[in-house]
Each structure stands twice: as C-alpha cells, then as structure tokens.
C-alpha cells in the first residue's frame, strides 16, 4: 500500500476548559475505509470538523501524504465532506450540485459536463442530472452528496453519520452500497458514526472514541473479539456484563465470583497483567450455549442452571433472557437449528460458555 494518506498526531481541542478531543493520534492508510465510532458527545464530530478545517485544533497536527494541512482553509484542503444532513443545495439541480466544486476550480464547461455525467453513472443515477433535489429519494440524495465530493477526486472523504436520517431497510442497503463504492473508487473514507453495526460492516479499521480519547484502533474483528478496554467491550456488539470479585489467576485463566456466589472463569489479560479486586466480566450472547440437558455443557469451563425470564423472538437474531442468579442475568442467542424454538418463559435450562470467550477487566472509576 502507498504511503499513509492521513496522519493525525496528538490532536487536541477544548472548549472553555472542557476537552472535546484529547491527544488523538491515528493513521489511515491510503485507500482504506476508516471509521470513528463513539457515543454522541464523545468528540467525534469535533475531530471530523478539525479534519475538514472548520475548527482549528489547540495543538497537534493533521498531515496528508506527510504534508501538514493545518494552514489551509477548508476550501483549499484536499478533503471533502458529506454532511450529516447532506447539505445539498436546494436551489440547484442535481447536475449543478455535482458540478459546483468543479465550477469553483474553473474547469472548462465541456469537461465539467463530462465529469459530472461520469460521476452520475458511477453512483447509478445517470438520468438524475436535470432533477431538482426534492425530487430525489433519501438514498438517491445520499449518493448525490457523495458524488458531489468524489467528482473533485479528494485525497480524503469525510462522512458525518450520513445514514442517520434513513429508515432501517435503506440504511442496511446503503451500508453495503457505500462499502462497494469505496472499494471500487479507492478513495480514503473517514466515516464517523455512533452505530456500531455501520462501523463494523463497512470499515477496514475502526477507532472507538470515548470522552475525547481513542480507546482502541483496530479491525472490526479485533474490536469485537479482543476489546482492550471495558468501554470497547460494552460498546461494540452486545455483551452480558456482570460485576465479580477476583478469586485468583493461574494458567492464563482468572477465577471470579459474583456477589451471589456464581463462579466464573475468564481469559487472563493479553498483556499478562494480573487482575485483582473487583472486575467486570463480559460474555457475548452468541458465546453462550443453551441446552435442556446438562451433558451438552459438561465440557465447558463455565456452566450454570438458569431460568428463562423472557424470550425476544427476532428471526435469526432471536435471544432469550435468563436469570442465573439474582445478580446475573444473561442474554443468550438462541441456536438457529430450531432446537430451542419451543422454549417457554419459566423453563429451567442449562447454559455453558468457554473461559476464553469470557473477558474480564479490573473495575476502574471511569468505566
């Protein structure tokens, strides 16, 4: 892969003493799809607006291809942005919207026409040119907003939660479409979102942001299977979380006990550091095996008897909420082979899960 396209170095910004972005550093290789994932108010919008040039950072640097762009105003940065509400110009036609940036650059009329048409073909809206913006559907507007930026061939495209306003079906569809479009065009995308599914589905790499800092940067798989902080473990994907007291640690395994006396075995920290005191334990719903006969879970490190308190039927994503002890309630994904389709509320079942699918983090005040 070519030289790193975007380098963010120790970027900070605070407003009246409140730190919005706190010494954030990351590198986005050219041509990749990079997402910044975080809850609202975590500073991701501030970060994006600094990249676009609408906000200047207090300290740190933003480099593209090794060159700092801090001195450049937004209209001269090789960065374009797809706004949250798209910000298509309502007084212009679709073609005029797409041509806007080219006209500003003084490209000749004939070339503008040709490049706009090529771009409209690329986003599969070849006939949309003469239409007004309000004649487009939500998904079409989306594509035009992206086309308007991509026609300028930016080094970097920023996307500020552009799928937020769409309904669920269209959002699912656009996720796939955006990923395909990015792969086809090869422009570097930096996408910010609070929706973990958007980030996981589309991105090559994801940075999880919380309270102005990056918690972890990695591939979606790394974030999902090997979260480094309790925040990432709870924010990315669904997790069962319960508080435990650490009993001891040996052979890469930590033994813990909940307040009600359930013993849980979890994987030791990757970096080898010992966990002590109170800890949070995380188990993914799909990591838990649910069965009616005890023998099936006998080989698993963690096992328990549980009572079904609720069943959430959602097709392939169906799950059951079980009560193991008074302080441990488990959400468990139901197997898709129909074995548990007759499960009833109030039934007693057996659950089991492996210790290496169980994560524990020492309790910190902020987590």
């Amino acid at each position, binding site marked *: 892969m070519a030289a790193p396209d975007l380098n963010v170095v120790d970027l900070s910004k605070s407003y009246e003493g409140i730190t919005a972005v706190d010494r954030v550093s990351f590198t986005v290789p050219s041509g990749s799809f990079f997402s910044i994932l975080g809850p609202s108010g975590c500073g991701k919008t501030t970060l994006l607006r600094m990249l676009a040039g609408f906000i200047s950072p207090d300290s740190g640097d933003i480099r593209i291809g090794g060159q700092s762009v801090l001195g450049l105003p937004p209209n001269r940065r090789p960065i374009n942005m797809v706004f949250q509400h798209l910000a298509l110009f309502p007084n212009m036609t679709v073609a005029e919207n797409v041509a806007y940036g080219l006209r*500003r650059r003084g490209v000749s009329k004939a070339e503008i026409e040709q490049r706009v048409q090529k771009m409209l073909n690329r986003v599969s809206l070849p006939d949309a040119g003469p239409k007004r913006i309000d004649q487009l559907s939500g998904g079409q507007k989306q594509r035009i907003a992206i086309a308007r930026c991509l026609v300028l061939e930016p080094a970097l495209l920023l996307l500020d939660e552009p799928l937020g306003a769409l309904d669920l079906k269209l959002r699912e569809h656009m996720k796939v479409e955006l990923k395909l479009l990015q792969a086809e065009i090869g422009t570097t995308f930096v996408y910010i979102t609070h929706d973990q599914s958007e980030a996981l589905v589309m991105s090559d790499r994801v940075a999880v942001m919380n309270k102005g800092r990056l918690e972890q940067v990695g591939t979606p798989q790394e974030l999902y299977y090997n979260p480094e902080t309790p925040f990432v473990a709870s924010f990315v994907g669904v997790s069962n979380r319960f508080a435990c007291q650490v009993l001891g640690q040996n052979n890469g395994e930590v033994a813990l006990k909940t307040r009600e006396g359930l013993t849980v075995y979890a994987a030791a920290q990757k970096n080898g550091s010992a966990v002590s005191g109170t800890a949070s334990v995380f188990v993914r719903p799909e990591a838990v095996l649910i069965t009616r006969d005890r023998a099936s879970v006998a080989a698993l490190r963690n096992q328990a008897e549980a009572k079904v308190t609720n069943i959430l039927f959602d097709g392939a994503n169906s799950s059951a909420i079980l009560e193991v002890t008074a302080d441990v309630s488990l959400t468990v994904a139901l197997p898709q082979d129909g074995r548990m389709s007759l499960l009833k509320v109030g039934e007693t079942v057996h659950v089991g899960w492996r210790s290496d699918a169980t994560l524990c983090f020492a309790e910190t005040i902020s987590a």
Partner: protein
Amino acid sequence: MIQAMNPATPGGKLTFWLLFAPAMLWLIALIIAPHLQLFAISFREPSAGGQTSLGLNNYSEFFIEPLYWRTFARTAIMSIVTTILTAVIGLPVAYYIAKLTRGYSKSILFVACLLPFWVSELVRTLGWMILLRETGVLSGFLQAIGVIDHPIEFLYNDATVIVGLVYTSMLFMVVPLINGFESLEDSLIEAGYDLGGNIFSVTRDIIIPHVMPGLVSGCIVVFMLSLGNYATPTLLGGKNSLWFTEQIYAQFITRFNWEQGAAFGFLLLVLSSAIIWLGLRLTGQRLVDVVR
C-alpha cells in the same frame, strides 16, 4: 367543535364566515368602499355652470403636464435607490443578527432595530432635521474639528431624503431577511466552502438564492413605503425635493381639486404595481413565494 370548524360541513361554513366577517367588514368598509368612491370621482370633470361630466381628462393631465409625470418618475427612481440601499445595508445586518449572535445579544440587536419605531415618524424625521440643518449638530461638529469653515446646510436635497427614507425603511427589510437567514442551514454554507467556494461565490450561489424570497418581499414593502411616504420627503426635501404624494396632497387640500387628486392616487397605485410586477419578472420571483 372540530366538526364545526371544518369548512366542508354546512355548520363549518357558517363558522368560517362568522370568523371571517370582521376582516371582511374592515376590508369593505375601510378600503374597498372609499377606493371605489375615489375611483368614481377620478373620472368626474367639472364644467361650466357647476355641471359635471365624465371623462379621462384627470388622467391625461398627468401625462400632458411635465411637472406631474416628472415628479412621479423622480419619486419612483429615488424610491428604487432607497430600496437598493436598504437591501445593501440590511443584508449584512440581518446576517449578523441571524447567524453570528445568540441569545441575549441577538434580542438586544433586534430590539435596537425596532426601537426607532416606538417614536412617531414625524418625531424621527424632526430628529434628522436637528442633526442636519445649517445650525445643526453635524454642521457644528464639522466646524468644531475644522473640516469646514462656515455652516453648511445638509437639509433639502435628494441625498438627505434618501438617507431619511433608508432609515425609516430598515426594519421592514431586516425582519424578512432575518427569517430568511435563520432558515438557512449552516451546513449549506460550510458545504459551499468545503467544495472550494470563497466568500463571494458562497454568497452569490448559496446565501442570496436562499434569502431571495425574503429579500424581494422586503424590497416590495420598502419600495411601497418610500413611494407612498409623505412626512420624510416633505420635511427633509423641502421645496427642492418634490415627491409625488405632495402633488396628491396639494390637489386635495390646497387646490381642493378632489377629482385630480383621486386620479393621481390611482395612477400611483397602478404605476407602482407595474414597477413591482416588473421587478418580480426581472428577478424571476413569483408573488406567491414572496408573500409566503
């Protein structure tokens, strides 16, 4: 109750007319009826022996006598200049109030625009006279700092009339513009910059088209107010600055020629409407969008 309010039902129709009646009465009794009366008067021609006949003499008089149509042309041109100046000053003022200020300071600035209108127009105009007359504040100040060596009369010229009219009209331009700017999403302006625009192209391509309906409605109000103004041009312009409303006043009050005055009144209405229609055509706006 909802049923009764629905104009589609018979009971709803009655409710609608009852609610509409006061406005209708006001419109008929105070606007339409007197205008019809004046319209009728404007065709009356006094002739020998106290007899009257009907004809278009009162109207043709306007086109035959140069003083009259020249005064009208002058009034129209100065009103257009006033309108343009008001728009040029009003745009940045409204932009500042709508986009760059928040909360308390926004209210203060808005009230500052409104404040002059708590005083009668006559008093406001007299205030300008205190400032601008030969022995006034401005002349005195310029003498004191040595810019001029003898008193200068700033009153009684066209520029002074326009200054007074712009001042009087500002609020009516600023209010619709503030509404226009407030409905303009900041992200549209940012997108303009992000895609390579600068302050001029963003203003021309994004901001002005968005506030155009507000701007045009402001312009219509300011133009009509200036054209029909009486106190400001009379007091600030004096004898040197004839205004068409003064001609109407003179016909009604000084010459007691109601027939001629009524004809002038209708000419003012028709000609100013024609100018506004032309303005709308030139800017490509539709009246329905502007008054919305």
